């Protein structure tokens, strides 16, 4: 049986991560991973993004099941609890807001452009090799560095939990997944 087109979305996820090493502005494309699932849940009231289209989920499945980099052990109970999922979502949002604030400071000329990618909200990695002077406003590049940091950090976390626990353990605490499920619940109630 021929695989449906959306089963190849993992290629886009891998490509996205690679492109960030060549030109940081490609990081902006990651906005689709935020906007599309939200729109689907708001308009359609379902999680078909997670269920079918999520390239990251497919990439993690592939890493865990095909390549076999996974212990395939159940994750700790507390990680599957609502408080942990909402807690991680809140933490993620705060970090995201901080990234937007830095972008704003660069926009206001209070701060200069930081050509770094911050991994796990802690480690600043020099990333000027992927920065090309374009003449575009600096905040556009600052946002790209910040957004790519978010995407790379969450990929790393996803791979770590993939190795430690079952493939796609990331889905349990994925902020987008938690948010879209919450939207579906609210939508169903009203």
């Amino acid at each position, binding site marked *: 049986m021929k695989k449906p087109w959306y089963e190849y979305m993992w290629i886009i996820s891998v490509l996205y991560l690679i492109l960030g090493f060549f030109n940081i502005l490609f990081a902006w494309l990651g906005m689709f991973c935020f906007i599309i699932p939200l729109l689907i*849940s708001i308009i359609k*009231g*379902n*999680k*078909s993004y*997670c*269920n*079918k289209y999520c390239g990251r*989920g497919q990439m993690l*499945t592939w890493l865990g099941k095909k390549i076999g980099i996974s212990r395939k052990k*159940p*994750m700790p109970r507390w990680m*599957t*609890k*609502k408080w942990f*999922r909402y807690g991680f979502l809140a933490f993620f949002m705060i970090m995201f807001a901080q990234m937007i604030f830095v972008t704003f400071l660069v926009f206001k000329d209070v701060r200069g452009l930081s050509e770094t990618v911050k991994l796990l909200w802690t480690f600043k990695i020099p990333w000027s090799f992927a920065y090309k002077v374009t003449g575009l406003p600096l905040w556009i590049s600052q946002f790209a560095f910040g957004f790519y940091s978010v995407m790379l950090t969450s990929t790393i976390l996803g791979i770590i939990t993939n190795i430690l*626990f*079952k*493939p*796609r*353990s*990331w*889905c*349990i605490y994925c902020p987008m*997944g*938690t948010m*879209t*499920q919450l*939207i*579906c*619940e609210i*939508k*169903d109630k009203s």
Partner: protein
Amino acid sequence: MAKRVAKLQKDLCVACGTCVKVCPKNAISIYKGKYAQVDESKCIGCSLCAKECPASIITIKTKEVVA
């Protein structure tokens, strides 16, 4: 007669849909983006979904069925 079926803890389900993908009988669906639902009439209790579920909240239970 006893039948083996998959049971899941709804309140811990994140509706990721990995169980739907592995089910050989198409017995699982995601209900309104909220949680996975097992159609017990289709379920054969093969436990593929239980193995797949990243939250490990699916268990195989034996159910008495009146023939």
